């Protein structure tokens, strides 16, 4: 790198060695570098790429349309709400108790519209920038997002439910979740609910994912039961499970 090559000069007086200025003397701190550099910029929660390159232009157009539609809907909703509130105030029995309250209420309404307008403008601006980013990311010939590491994901797991009641199940797993999962008792949001201990994973094999078995006792209280899914070997949390029991 920086070193003068010869240790001796022509007149036999040794020359001093020195370092050249480094290419940089500070770490790269920018979060942008640490997101894009990882290739994980567009990965979803389950580790799957959000979209492939071929579908991107269409997705970009959808995004613009969606954003604009959303913005209009938001403003429309607020106008309708404002009209509704105004009608209520005009109706008998709904007068403000204090005349001084009107300016305050109107001021609050104006603030709400101002904030929403600001949010909408921000949203529009950012959607436009997203389109630019998408277009840049999916230039023809550009590298596609890398595939995620193989693993199991929640949709891959067969679920067997045994219940006399209606049940909805939400299973979220980390991309690196393996085949040997376990789950401690699920606890109900309703304090009166007994922990649900009849939920378990049947181990999977190298070719088959584990199977989630959910057995709901008849006396089970209707509420949401939640718990952490852990790797049975390491005890490391691998995701969450919510079993929603409805009467």
């Amino acid at each position, binding site marked *: 790198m920086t070193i003068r090559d010869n240790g001796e000069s022509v007149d036999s007086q040794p020359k001093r060695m020195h370092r050249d200025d480094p290419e940089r003397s500070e770490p790269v701190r*920018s979060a942008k570098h640490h997101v894009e550099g990882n290739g994980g910029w567009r990965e979803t929660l389950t580790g799957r790429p959000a979209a492939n390159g071929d579908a991107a232009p269409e997705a970009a157009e959808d995004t613009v349309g969606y954003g604009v539609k959303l913005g209009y809907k938001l403003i429309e909703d607020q106008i309708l709400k404002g009209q509704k509130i105004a009608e209520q105030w005009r109706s008998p029995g709904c007068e403000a108790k204090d005349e001084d309250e009107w300016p305050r209420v109107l001021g609050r309404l104006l603030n709400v519209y101002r904030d929403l307008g600001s949010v909408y403008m921000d949203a529009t601006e950012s959607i436009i920038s997203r389109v630019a980013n998408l277009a840049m990311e999916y230039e023809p010939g550009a590298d596609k997002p890398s595939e995620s590491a193989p693993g199991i994901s929640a949709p891959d797991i067969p679920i067997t439910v045994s219940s006399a009641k209606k049940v909805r199940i939400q299973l979220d797993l980390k991309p690196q979740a393996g085949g040997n999962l376990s789950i401690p008792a699920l606890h109900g949001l309703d304090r009166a609910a007994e922990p649900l201990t009849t939920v378990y994973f049947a181990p999977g094999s190298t070719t088959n994912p584990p199977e989630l078995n959910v057995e709901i006792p008849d006396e089970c209280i209707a509420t*949401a039961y939640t718990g*952490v899914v852990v790797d049975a070997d390491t005890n490391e949390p691998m995701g969450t499970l919510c079993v929603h029991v409805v009467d």
Partner: protein
Amino acid sequence: MTGDKPIEVAVIGGGCGSMAAAFELSRPEHRGKYHVTVYQVGWRLGGKGASGRGAADRIEEHGLHIWLGFYENAFRLMRECYTELDRDPSAHRIAQWTDAFFPDAHAGVAELGHAGHWSNWTAFFPPADGLPGDPLSTHNPFTINNYVVRTLQLLHSLILGLRSSDQTSEPDLPYETTAPDSNAALSSMLRLVEVGVLTSVAAVLEAIKILEVVLRSIAAYPHSLLVQFIELIASSVRNLLEGIVTSDPAVKLRWEIIDLVIAIMVGAVRYRLLTDPRGLDSINQYECREWLLENGASETSVNSPFVRGLYDLALAYEDGDPNRPGLAAGQAIRGSLRMFFTYRGSLFWKMRAGMGDIVFAPFYEVLKRRGVTFKFFHRLQNVRLADPATLAPGEKSYVQALEFDIQAETVDGLEYQPLRDVHSVPSWPSQPDYAQLVDGSALAENGWDPESHWDTHRSSPLTLEVTRDFDFVVLGIGVGAVPYVCRELVEQDHRWRMMVDKVKTVATQAFQIWMREEMSELGWKEPPVTLSAFCKPFDTWADMTHLVPEESWADVPKSIAYFCNILADPESANAELDPEYPEQRHVEVRDNAIRFLNEKIGELWPGAVDGKAFRWDLLVDPADEKGNGQAQFDSQYWTANVNPSDRYVLALPGSMDYRISPLDNTYDNMTVAGDWTDCGFNEGCVEAAVMSGRLAAHAISNSPALEEIIGYDHP
């Protein structure tokens, strides 16, 4: 190599930074291009990590040394060192790095309750994938993606674990089978902000999931909306969960961690940490606790044992004053992210013997084999700069000479042999081997301490001249010593003057005791633990009973405990001019330890106190002399680390910009190494020192590449 003559590198100091630099520069891949000479004060390597073997071969440390599972650079070098050492496992108790380090998954904090009694909370940190020092081949963990996901998962799990008192059985948002895509996330954010309240834990959890999607591609969302959204989550979580806070310390602590995590997430968005090119450095001017308060954390949370524990582990108290905690917010968060989310194998790793035996003896042996020269008993007195008048036009300033005191000569000029085997483990003794020194007997009788800053014994002076004796210098001394040996630098160079003024250090104190009863008999029913946030003056305790087999006791102890903490500076700086100063502080630490054992230790070990005093007969005396009462403590080990070079560097708010990087080229034949430098992880620890040493080697040889210095490039 260029020509026949290797490039001479003088490495000054023998701590982690210096050893890392020497290790890199002497790698076989350089084919002998660099010849390294290490100049070390006294008889042993290690700096603040030095340890010695005292009576009964007991291990005597400067303090408590525990390696964290994110010390990627440090572990990588240690693993390479042990591989190259190639010890025969049948002949050495500690042959492989896995013999030298073992995982310790338990951490604890203590808290003072309303009734005036201390309770403790210990946690098991599950093993993480891989081992520290493994190649980072698949996933770079130092990404915003990873941190966001891990932080929100932690928040998710903590909230689930708390089991809210929320009584609603119906979540106010439908569960979805997959994570929302970015459009749905935007829509949900707008809708939730419009609604203005999340009325159930389930809704909060759903909102956290949306937040995760949003933060992974933050640039695509409007900032004002994001701020509103995250503040909505924060206020909702606090409203929903505050009611469940109970007197149960475990539940209370969990809630406090939730509160802190939320404050960090709110602050990350409000301060645009995820998009600022300076990364976390952009908030280093803020004190961490104040920054957390600013972002909505409660007073209770920022004073929680969890936060105090982190401050205690970082010895983060300005001037050693427990009432002046100080930690730069950005570095504190970076340290926490690294500590909790990037550890591999285990959160903590303990050493099987003293740090000197485990770290510095192997480095010494390997470096010797590579041809590195060690000069013990060399005290640096002055770094002399070139006369500015002699500089050629455009030439940078440089180090002209290094002036040393040779503290002692060896008999017949033989090379000093610093190690001796203890149970087949090459170890450093706690004192010089006087038999190898000229007039050694007299030095021993006078109680000579060549490591003391106040020692003036000198055999002869030595001046090393540039080009004649060295080409490059790695200044690897502690920052506390810089004003004493770099006087010209500090006088002439504003940056160096500001550095020694702003990058402050703190003295530390530590003591070790060896006891006749097991921890369980003393009343400690938890697993062996490293516990912090206990009371001053010794807030951190580690159970080190695993060291018993490495020592040589006639009366074998059944437990060993190490304690450490900061040591407050004297009110007058002139106090340090008194030659008796180190002895005064030594006595002070002894008194502190005795008072602590008498008055405080019963809170942790109820079986160690009898009535209201410590059971002094518990202590094992290596001389096997039956002491009387608390005089028995004199047979134990304690230290006041007041030498300038032994002082621990702080990461105070507003100080980071004053650190000097090993890559700085102002003096183009000198670089710096140590945890006090601007090394990418600016907090006093082994990892920072090793990163710094690797950077110093890069500055001289362009190797290792900056990309190979793990975690140097980090948000």
